[in-house]
């Protein structure tokens, strides 16, 4: 760790912290990105040098990586200090800052953007890599999803070496990418979105599905037997030996139980007993504003972030039956300019409840809901949405910048 850093790396680290602090002081975010950029200019190998000697886990996938990173951090804190990029700055600049800010941390849990997995494998030599899922996301600019899985497969084959991969057995793209690795721990983490894996990523033939099992009709790629799973009944994770670990999560939905299963699987590879780790996950109550509960004028809002079709479907699975739902859609640069994906989401489950639509692209949502026969009202912003619903619980589902707009209205609630 820092004791072993070269003078140049120490200088780079100091500059990084200064730049990050300045950026924070001037109100431009938490400074992770700018700080990391400054540090890496002075010492291009800074990330590698800062990671050296630490026990690192990388967590990547289309959905759930921020939450899984938080869960994993909470679990690993049972045995030591953990460096983590908890503000969602999930590219190398953010990773560099996370490590620089925690020079004494023996462990590091790094959320990793899907496109940087290879770079991080090389730079951080992780002990564990957790791969959650791959589905369509921001298609108008990102690499298409099968191509991304192929890139992961290549990267893992070249660089995984001594790394243990914790991977989702329910996602054929993940299984195909991870199956080149020597050591894989499979988690039955579920798949809420199957449209991107109707055909085999390995050979292009059809995948047959029987319940949760799936198999390629041609090349034999199939669902590996998972060592970790989410219990059928109640809120618990079942470990490799069949033992059941009760959860008491503050975050809703099946998908977060799956994220917890992945976190416990990762933590146990670091030597943390799930009996000790599971209760620690209850301390996570919201993740950068996601799942946060806020109140205004007697309306109790729960904020759900959903960036892509799989995320929207997962949110609809999480929300309580009954309360009004506010949907907010933007299509700014980070969201992707193309709103077409809303036609990949089935909104019919919202039928019969009060639905309020807002965001820059609320008209797109209005047309979409009309096609699905869901009644709705359209309002200008989140304030108007709050005024449009009666006091009581309200579920808010928003995509990335729309979510940040809602969060800003509540003083950037965490």
């Amino acid at each position: 760790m820092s004791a072993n850093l070269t003078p140049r790396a120490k200088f780079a680290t100091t500059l990084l912290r200064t730049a990050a602090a300045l950026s924070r002081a001037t109100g431009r975010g938490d400074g992770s990105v700018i700080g990391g950029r400054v540090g890496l200019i002075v010492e291009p190998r800074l990330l590698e040098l800062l990671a050296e000697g630490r026990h690192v886990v990388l967590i990547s996938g289309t959905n759930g990586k921020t939450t899984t990173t938080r869960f994993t951090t909470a679990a690993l804190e049972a045995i030591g200090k953990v460096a983590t990029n908890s503000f969602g700055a999930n590219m190398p600049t953010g990773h560099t800052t996370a490590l620089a800010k925690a020079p004494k941390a023996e462990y590091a849990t790094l959320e990793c953007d899907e496109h940087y997995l290879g770079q991080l494998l090389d730079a951080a030599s992780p002990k564990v890599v957790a791969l959650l899922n791959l589905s369509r996301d921001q298609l108008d600019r990102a690499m298409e999803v099968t191509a991304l899985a192929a890139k992961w497969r290549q990267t893992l084959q070249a660089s995984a070496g001594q790394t243990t991969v914790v991977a989702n057995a329910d996602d054929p793209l993940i299984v195909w990418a991870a199956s080149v690795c020597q050591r894989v721990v499979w988690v039955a983490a579920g798949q809420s979105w199957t449209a991107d894996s109707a055909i085999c990523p390995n050979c292009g033939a059809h995948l047959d599905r029987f319940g949760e099992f799936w198999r390629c009709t041609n090349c034999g790629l199939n669902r590996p037997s998972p060592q970790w799973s989410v219990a059928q009944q109640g809120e618990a994770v079942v470990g490799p030996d069949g033992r059941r670990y009760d959860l008491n999560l503050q975050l809703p939905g099946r998908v977060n139980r799956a994220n917890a299963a992945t976190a416990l699987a990762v933590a146990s590879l670091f030597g943390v007993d799930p009996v000790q780790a599971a209760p620690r996950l209850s301390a996570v109550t919201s993740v950068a504003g996601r799942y946060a509960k806020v109140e205004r004028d007697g309306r109790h809002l729960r904020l759900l972030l959903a960036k892509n079709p799989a995320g929207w479907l997962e949110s609809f699975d999480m929300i309580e039956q009954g309360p009004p739902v506010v949907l907010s859609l933007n299509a700014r640069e980070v969201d992707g300019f193309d709103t077409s994906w809303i036609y990949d989401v089935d909104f019919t489950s919202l039928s019969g409840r009060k639905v309020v639509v807002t965001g820059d692209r609320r008209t797109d949502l209005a047309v979409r809901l009309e096609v699905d026969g869901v009644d709705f009202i359209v309002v200008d912003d989140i304030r108007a949405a709050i005024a449009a619903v009666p006091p009581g619980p309200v579920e808010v589902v928003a995509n990335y910048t729309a979510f940040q707009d809602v969060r800003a209205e509540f003083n950037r609630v965490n």
Partner: protein
Amino acid sequence: MALSTLRIVWLYPDLLSTYGDRGNLLVLAHRARARGIDVEPMQIRSDQHIPHTADIYLIGGGEDGPQAVAADRLLQDGALSRAAEAGKPILAICAGYQLLGASFYANGRAYEGLNILDLRSDRGPSRAVGEIAGEAAPQLGIGPITGFENHGGRTHLGEAVQPLARVTAGVGNDGATEGAWAGHVIGTYMHGPGLARNPKLADLLLAWAVGVNPAQLPPLDDTWPERLRHERFAALSASQ
């Protein structure tokens, strides 16, 4: 109406389904049902036979590999070509549009298409991604079109087809024209789904399917689709 149940086939969603392609099926079904027409949506996988008896055929976009596989299976099946000869309405998007032509380019080489539309496609100098708008062929009576495109190919039209529209924003076939039509077959680069943003195009397909003039379809309340069209055209004029 001439039909008791309108059968709308969505071809090969296992191979060709990106960018909200399912939406075109949903929009057609919604607009038919709103007029009291029963609808039977059918999703036909690439390992199934294509029904001869459907009333509208839809085919969507996809990546290079699946596009080549889909073209091969469609050629072997033959039913889509027979549907075109029989005058059944066909709407093809992006990769699905390209494979209706004589040839298209995928995986770094040319492939034989279905030859349903007189056109051929190759690679363009850059990927066309963004809003697209145009003036539709006046014979179609659907007014200006609006959509979102995302494709690397360029399409060259032959004598036996007409462009769907003259491009006013975006790229389409080649920067000048967008899409193509002949008889009751329409191809376009507008995904997302094109029919949600162009309800008159949806109604044209429905009218062809049931054998009436579009003006004879009972009008629907298109407040929201019209508002969306207005917004998209306004956004384009602001950015130009």
